[in-house]
């Protein structure tokens, strides 16, 4: 019985993974929005305000993170089927 169940479970998992990857692709811009909104909460009560270098590195760091995450998701998505096929059953 376990032998019979093995292959469907495997296939199920693959398409399940694809679904979650598209979820990730959808959520990525939300992550970007949140991360780039966080500096707005920084307190600027110190005399010289927020450090220039820190803010610069933070904004650009988030940027690099988003680019890398997006590239990784696309890479994983590309391994499998066309998006239209996985979408149609979505």
């Amino acid at each position, binding site marked *: 019985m376990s032998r019979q169940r093995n292959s469907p479970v495997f296939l199920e998992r693959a398409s399940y993974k694809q679904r979650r990857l*598209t979820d990730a*692709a959808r959520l990525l*811009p939300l992550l970007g929005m949140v991360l*780039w909104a966080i500096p*707005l909460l*920084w307190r600027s009560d110190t005399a010289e305000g927020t*450090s*220039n*270098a820190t803010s610069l590195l933070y904004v650009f760091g988030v940027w690099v993170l988003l680019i890398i995450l997006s590239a990784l998701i*696309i890479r994983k998505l590309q391994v499998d089927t066309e998006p239209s096929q996985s979408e149609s059953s979505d």
Partner: protein
Amino acid sequence: MISFNVLIFAALSYVAILFAVAFLAEQRAAAGHSNWLHSPLIYTLSLSIYCTAWTFYGAVGYAARSGLEFVTIYLGPTLVMVGWWWILRKLVRIGRSQRLTSIADLISSRFGKSTLLGMVVTVISVIAATPYIALQLQSVTLSFAVFAQSGAQVWDAADFNATALWVAVGLAIFTILFGTRNLDVNERHHGIVMAIAVEAVVKLMALVAVGVFVVWGIAGGPSGMLQRIETSDITLWDQDSGRWISLIFLSGAAFICLPRMFQVLVVENADERHLRVASWAFPAYLFLMSLFVVPIAVVGLDLLPAGSNPDLFVLTVPLFEGRNGLAVLSFLGGFSSATSMVIVATIALATMVSNHIVVPVWLHLQADQHAMMSGDVRKVILLARRLSIAGILMLGFIYYRASGGGTALAAIGLISFTGTVQILPALIGGIFWRGATRIGAALGLLTGLLIWTWTLFLPSFGVEAVISQSVMELGPFGIAWLRPQALFGIAGLDPLVHGIMWSMLWNAGIFVVGSLVSFPGPLERLQGAQFVNVFERSNAAPAWTSAATGAEDLLVMSQRILGSREAQAIFETEAARQGLTGYLPEVTPEFIQHLERELAGSVGAATAHAMIGQLTGGSGVSVEDLIAVADEAAQILEYSNRLEAKSAEQEQTARALRDANTKLTALSIQKDAFLSQISHELRTPMTSIRSFSDILRDDTMSAEARERYAGIIHDEAIRLTRLLDDLLDLSVLENGQVVLNEQTGDLSSLIDRAVGAAGLHDSLLVVVRDQTAEQVTLSADLDRLVQVFINVISNARKYCDASEPRLTIDVNHTEEAYHVDFIDNGSGIAKENEQLIFEKFSRVSDQSKAGGAGLGLAICREIMHRLGGDVAYLRRKDGTAFRVTVPKAKMSAALAET
């Protein structure tokens, strides 16, 4: 210092190289070697037209003035690209499936191929783009001036204007040459896209080169640079949260709504998979473009004398350091940014102007004269497009002249963005919400345009330019809540945030409300379903029902738009697909729809629809079509309904078959019963004949007994013969083979014959007759009639069970027939047997008394039917009555003859 002429030479050489690149790309595409042109890399680089000269030069100035706020202009597009799965993927799929030519085409096509909406979007786009094009002209002119001034020339206003004019003319020529060579936008501008890709590389290299020089050449590496940034006068992070979020939203929305971005993102997209690569590669490009902006700004502020224009640091820092080569590269980068943006923007806008304003107006003017048959639309469209390109550049130049090229122009970039973004609600609503309607979209767009014009566009010309100071402070006619920068009394907001907020809120709000209260037309609903469900439906629903048009007319029209070769190729392919010889296919709705798509690729959906509509004369869609095709569910439902109907039909057939089977079974049972009856009837006399003949063989029998037995055998043989005679008679009668001998005779004598032959001499039966009534003459087969009478009378003799049996024979007549009633005084026939008595072998009472086979009445009825009359059982209170009906018609005819 490099001479100004060298710079001119460098710029012209660069343009020449671009020409060569564009030309080669077109050549290769024409020769079919366009594979490498269709790579994700080229697609990504072509998106870089988002980075205009405003961002190339202006970002540094922006950073010097407002710190990190400049980065919002890149963060919005980054979020949109990273979130490609949401909007861009759908836009690209819709663009490909609907063969969209521009963003105006998208909106017009979505809302029922509306010409009005296409015009509105085109007008918004042109108004919003004009200042932006002016900005590009200004940047290029300023960068020329920087070199001229570094060469100790002093430029006055005339020099600026002349330079700007030459740049505008040069751009117009380049754009017309490569942008309007072919008409079908979906064939794509290979040359232009390739040139843009080269320019994208040049501007990135230029900015990175300056950045690397600044970081490593001046600041001494990254850590030194960070040190300088930390101690710089610029405050990088001092953001108003409203502005930060609004600007990210604004730039992201503009990235989708700008006509030029739509052109490269959707129209020029050759393969949907390119979008996947671009989704991370383009943010990376933006990242690199902005990485060195802050370092250049910081170093520029440190190095250059106070009061120098930070917008030009990218040029002036290398020049100040004596790096002339780097400065020229930087100049070319800025030049690239400006030219690529202007080229694509003018192509996109010219397409929109020609497809959504010029051609509809031209069609409208020519509508009475059946323009389709006379003018060459192709030439009109190309001419319109070329004139539009020149016109749009001229508008930009005029705006540049009018604004005086001052700093006011720099501020207008974001205002221009806000104008473009007014398209966003209609666009997003259109592709995600099936309930969005044309009226809602039009009202929303116009409201947004109005608020944008009042709060941002008109004030941008400067104080007292269009709106007077008093109106700004007190509102028009003293209405305070209409003040351009404090609508509804909400003052104190940043003017830009104020304008974005109110225009978007009202635009989206009116759009939604307008859509909710209005009702869309059939075509609108159909298009809505196709746009919103673009991933679910791969094939589109047929939009044309009436195909009452000739293939030749369609071909003539298509040739005028697509060119004769392409049009004929389409028609021949279709004819071949339909299996026809020759080049004219059958005009099917599918073909018309296909043709409309092809035409839409050249002139836009609304115009193509109108043109086809002129020829076919049909209103594209009927409500029935809509119901049948708009929803996939409807199709499935219909299919299942059909199946259901079919199965019901089969059930009906099955039931009919079952009934037939039952009938056949019953018939078979009847046949079996008949056979067994007949064999029984035949066997009974045979049995007695056999047994008595056996006895006769015995010799010891007395002569008297022998006589008796022979008599029995004789009687039985007679009975058998009679039975067989009856059967034969019946079968002859039933098969209609009987020959009737027409005779004329007296009824009375017939009855005499019958009574005499019925064997009444040895019975008690008394026959009561009315001799006068019987005095009628009949004309029929009299022998057969007598046979019937005998049968009925002998039945009475056999079955009448009264103690004094009496048979009354009554004769009366109606118009048509004589009725001879035979009424006895017996007990009658039970009601349940009334139907049986005329059946074969039916005997109601016991068999011994009857001595017949039960065929008598059956034969009687057959005879009477043959004679055109009938014999029927009359139900009475007492006794049994049979009525023999003999038709009069024949007799009266016979009487008439005599």
